[in-house]
């Protein structure tokens, strides 16, 4: 089950301009070393231990009580006991049904469900999956996202729940090594990509609530990932994807005064290590943030189009229209009344198709016109400008179309 991680060209391994986004998707070849990383009790592992606890304190979502020496023995994606019980109760997700039979599953299909109230007291080793099984399980789940057979929302629902249960198993076994990092990175990616995909179909109110729940898990998983980085930190070494995942955190703050993590960004910056702050990915995110906060839409769009990675794009996309609205209101407010603004010029500025721009303007309560040679124009100083309520239809971002589908 090497599936999900190895599949190039999927949305999960999309790399761009040779920036090596794909590299992080494969576990490194020195796997055996990695597994001994978090051995307890030896002085050299103290940093790993320290953060193990803080990781756990941050994943209380899963109500798991950490137990330092608990190691699972369950060889399957789903403990046998649970599978049999759920077969009996006909509590099987579509992906778990053998030949579509709602009362029959198999070890290759059933995946352990997330269960809110679990305490180690009542957990048997046979209910807990060891790290290698968890890795396979995650790869299997992520590979499902490539399936074209089902609606994305359906797959998302399944993967959302089952990855939560993976995190619970990781937490309860107190796994804080590099393998845990790779798995958390994979799960954060899942939530980031879902963040974009669900946003694309936000017009459906059901999706809107899924989007919200996804965001909740995205922020929690990201916070846990940061704790894992910290736990595996040594001096000035930065993990391969550490900078990019930190940049996502910054980009999540693009909304006006939004604090998705419940903490002011300024306070968070105080704790970020210098090598991460200086990284290329963070410089990008900070530049985007600066342009956004200044209202410099020109720099915002140019920088985004030139440098955004796929994951960064997924986080930023929902804010793109917000910046376009700002640009429109600035131009409408300050533009010379006798010189209507050519839509062609404006569309280049906003990285939007000219035809889309026309509908975008209308959506903001602005009328568009045409000059004698047929060029489309936006008359300025219109008093009818209004912030569109209830969002937009989707408009392409021309710099990064290859990311959109």
């Amino acid at each position, binding site marked *: 089950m090497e599936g999900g991680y190895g599949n190039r060209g999927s949305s999960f391994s999309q790399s761009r301009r040779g920036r090596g986004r794909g590299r992080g998707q494969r576990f490194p070849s020195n796997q055996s070393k990695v597994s001994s990383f978090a051995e307890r009790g030896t002085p050299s*592992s*103290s*940093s*790993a*231990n*320290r*953060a*193990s*606890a*803080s990781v*756990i*304190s941050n994943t209380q979502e899963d109500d798991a009580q950490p137990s330092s020496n608990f190691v699972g023995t369950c060889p399957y994606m789903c403990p046998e006991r649970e599978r049999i019980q759920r077969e009996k109760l006909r509590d099987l997700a579509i992906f778990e049904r053998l030949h579509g039979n709602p009362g029959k599953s198999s070890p290759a299909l059933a995946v352990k469900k997330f269960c809110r109230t679990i305490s180690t007291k009542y957990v048997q080793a046979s209910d807990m999956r060891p790290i290698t099984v968890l890795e396979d399980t995650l790869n299997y789940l992520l590979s499902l996202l490539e399936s074209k057979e089902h609606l994305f929302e359906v797959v998302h629902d399944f993967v959302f729940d089952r990855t939560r249960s993976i995190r619970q198993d990781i937490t309860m076994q107190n796994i804080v090594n590099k393998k845990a990092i790779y798995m958390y990175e994979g799960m954060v990616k899942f939530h980031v990509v879902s963040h974009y995909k669900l946003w694309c179909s936000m017009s459906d109110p059901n999706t809107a609530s899924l989007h919200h729940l996804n965001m909740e898990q995205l922020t929690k998983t990201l916070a846990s990932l940061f704790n894992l980085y910290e736990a595996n930190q040594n001096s000035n070494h930065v993990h391969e994807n550490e900078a990019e995942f930190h940049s996502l955190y910054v980009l999540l703050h693009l909304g*006006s*005064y939004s604090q998705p993590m*419940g*903490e*002011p*960004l*300024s*306070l*968070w*910056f*105080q*704790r*970020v290590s*210098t090598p991460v*702050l200086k990284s290329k990915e963070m410089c990008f995110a900070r530049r985007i*943030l*600066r342009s956004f*906060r*200044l*209202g*410099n*839409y*020109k*720099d915002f769009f140019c920088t985004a189009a030139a440098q955004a990675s796929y994951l960064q794009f997924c986080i930023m996309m929902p804010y793109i229209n917000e910046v376009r609205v700002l*640009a429109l*209101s*600035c*131009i409408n*407010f*300050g*533009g*010379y*009344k006798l*010189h209507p*603004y*050519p839509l062609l*010029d404006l569309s280049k*500025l906003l990285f939007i198709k000219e035809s889309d721009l026309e509908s975008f303007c209308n959506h903001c309560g602005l009328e568009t016109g045409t000059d004698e040679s047929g060029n489309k124009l936006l008359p300025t100083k219109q008093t009818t400008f209004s912030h569109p309520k209830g969002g937009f239809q989707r408009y392409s971002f021309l710099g990064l179309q290859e990311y959109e589908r």
Partner: protein
Amino acid sequence: MSMGEAHRRITEYLNRFSDAISSQDGATFKSLFALSSNSPFLLSLGDALNLFQDPNRLIKQSDNYSQFADILVPLFRSLLNYRQNNLLEAYNAFEKTANAFIQEFRNWESAWALEALYVIVYDIRVLAEKADKELASNGKSPEKLKGAGSVLMKFFGTLAGKGSKRVGALYVTCQLFKIYFKLGTVHLCRSVIRSIETARIFDFEEFPKRDKVTYMYYTGRLEVFNENFPAADYKLSYALKHCNPQSEANIRMILKHLIPVKLSIGILPKNSLLEKYNLLEYSKIVQALRRGDLRLLRCALQDHEDRFLRSGVYLVLEKLELQVYQRLVKKIYIIQKQKDPGRAHQVKLEVIVKALKWLEIDMDVDEVECIVAILIYKNLMKGYFAHKSKVVVLSKQDPFPKLNGKPVNS
């Protein structure tokens, strides 16, 4: 130290303890809890406890002491461990003492023991920080400071009601702020603030001055995070005004956050102030604002990036860029006015591009148009821009409105 001497010291401590309570002698009482003050009296008591195997027997000997056993037994244990540098154990025991203390405190009608409460509140935070350091160095999760926060919330709850004890609530609040800022959980400040600020029965001004200053400092910083500059200005200025003029370190701390706020509302400090309080990291930024020198602003931000990020003002300073652009266009306007007053109010975008190029800032005419559009939109500039002729036409009246203590429009 002989066994007899140890015995004597412990008994002396117990006597002072029960005497202080029976005579409601707050000053003596408070000195009995101040672990981290390292007073000779408590240190020698620690040594005595180390020697004397069973101090609890002494506590049980007399009703005067034994009725406070819940406070005293863990307090002795804490003191002993503190003396032996077992900081985790010292904290755990002290937490028990604190919980027992607040039980008693609740039953005392007057606020006579408030000073002792302050000492406990302070020490529980300091001990928790030390315990967390010890935990971290042993590879364990540092969680005691968080725990101390919960204990202090209990203290706060006891004080926050009406009556004479309420005067102590602000001190506890300030210690809670210190914990939350350290842990990065400042959202927890909100409920405490609400309780302080909405209380009708107690006028804020009646709290002790020192606590008011600390409170205004922290809540002012929170307002800086929210970029609510008028409120931040009010709170930090209050702290500055009422702060002890002798304590330069505190004044400096307040200014560190107040200066970015003042800059954001268009008020620039004199250089002598920056020199006096050794805040020279701001002098280039102020200069950049005076000169309209974008390069200088960006250099200053880069040179002191770490410092500004660590003190949490970086993002605020970064936003000053708009004011620097405003100043730059204004300077161009002034120069044009000297040359040709009749046409000074028309500024070609190319001229701005050129000025930026002198500053080694590479911006094309589209981006300059964008900047101009924002300046107009945010009322930092009055006029309009013409996209076709690439020119900005400034209003003849007050083309560059001053902020005058108001934030830039958002």
